[in-house]
């Protein structure tokens, strides 16, 4: 075998070996990076039903001054005594409740007889609500019942509480509504 043949053999053999399955390139397989690895975790309460499951809201950034946080993921809070990390399908989709183009960000009103909602300012909303509460109370206030007992109740107004209402909010709500004479109270906790 002369030198030329030897070199030809080496090249052909090498080509054959690499073509038929001896791959020396390192194998790279990797899992996706954990998307909540360095997010800021904020504890909150699921707003949907009366069970009031604890959730953790993961937001982008580490609360640095120049970072504007954005919600990237929501999941159950394992330290919460009620749900211990679990969530129902509605609670599991809370991220879509926050990041939703159809989410209401300002007060709206649908006037009597109207077929559409119109945007109003918070000031106008407060004024109109206060006006209606005053008018309703004036119209439906019952000072004495048919037996002549003093009852001082307002039968035209009711109050519905929500599951994310805190003790403090509920205290204030009851004080305010009882002060007006309202006696119809309901809460989502019974729904």
């Amino acid at each position, binding site marked *: 075998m002369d030198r030329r043949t030897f070199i030809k053999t080496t090249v052909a053999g090498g080509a*054959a070996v690499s073509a038929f399955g*001896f791959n020396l390139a390192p194998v790279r*397989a990797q*899992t996706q*990076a954990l998307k909540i690895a360095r997010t800021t975790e904020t504890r909150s309460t699921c707003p949907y039903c009366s069970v009031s499951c604890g959730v953790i809201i993961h937001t982008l950034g580490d609360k640095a001054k120049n970072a504007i946080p954005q919600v990237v993921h929501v999941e159950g809070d394992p330290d919460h005594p009620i749900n211990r990390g679990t969530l129902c399908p509605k609670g599991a989709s809370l991220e879509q409740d926050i990041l939703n183009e159809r989410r209401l960000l300002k007060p709206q009103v649908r006037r009597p007889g109207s077929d559409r909602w119109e945007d109003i300012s918070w000031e106008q909303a407060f004024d109109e609500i206060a006006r209606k509460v005053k008018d309703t109370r004036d119209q439906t206030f019952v000072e004495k019942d048919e037996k002549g007992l003093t009852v001082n109740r307002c039968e035209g107004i009711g109050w519905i509480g929500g599951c994310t209402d805190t003790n403090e909010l509920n205290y204030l709500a009851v004080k305010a509504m009882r002060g007006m004479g309202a006696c119809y109270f309901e809460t989502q906790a019974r729904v």
Partner: protein
Amino acid sequence: MSDERVLQIQQISAHPGPVPGRGTQRAVEVCKYVDVTTCIGCKACEVACVEWNDHPFRETTFDDTYQTMPSTDWNYWNLIKFVEHENAGALMWLMRKDQCMHCADPGCLRACPADGAIVQYTNGIVDFQQENCIGCGYCISGCPFDIPKFNEGTKKVYKCTLCSDRVGQGLEPACIKACPTGCLHFGTKGDMLALANTRAQQLVQISGFRNAGVYDPPTVGGTHVIYVLHDATQPELYGGLPSNPVIPPSYTYWKWLAKPAGLFAALLGIFAVFFHRVTVGPKRPQPEPVVTEHPDEAETKRSEQP
């Protein structure tokens, strides 16, 4: 994507030679436990899966059942199958969480012809690496559970990853975490099997389901998702769970017989050519036969010339 490899690899699809680094670390096999008997069909696991994997939203299909859509899809890896089954005159509403079973001997991996497109980690998770996927779809026909799904847009195949990103960082999968009834559990394969056996015994002895049992099919080497069924003798009831899931034998013949034999034949051919060249030498052009002109014709030609 980070460059850190957090999970050690056990098997690689279509990879020639040994798996680099295999057997250099201890590993615990992980497992999902699905207790079909306590599932209420709330679909929290479905939503948690879509949320964690940031899947695009899609239309659901109404099919006269509460099932979200007929089968899992490339962007819907976790589906509760709703089956109304009549058992001795009584209606049984069976709900089974359908997802990748993460077989110990995965048909998808065996069928895959693309190097590194499907890997199995040492903890049992079977994961698709879409950057290596060539979109041939062999994994779809290799899977006995009809799990890998093709995306027409990207021409790649997708399926449940068992939240390999979460598990690799020490968290439980998103579906397991969400489950509000606790019919889903996550842990080591041993722990989950023990839990499943306890629950199955409970069903047999207390609840009167005589055929209750654990679904961990040995024909695919066991799975890393195990079910507790009311009737383990008829897994087909639960939305088509195969009682004897088998990888199509054609893939075994192809990968373990036809492919090596073909490669061997091709190599043999190349060596035959080489040895022919060395022993016999190159083919030389044959010397042309000498054509002698007829003496008479030569004579006449010569005489015609002026």
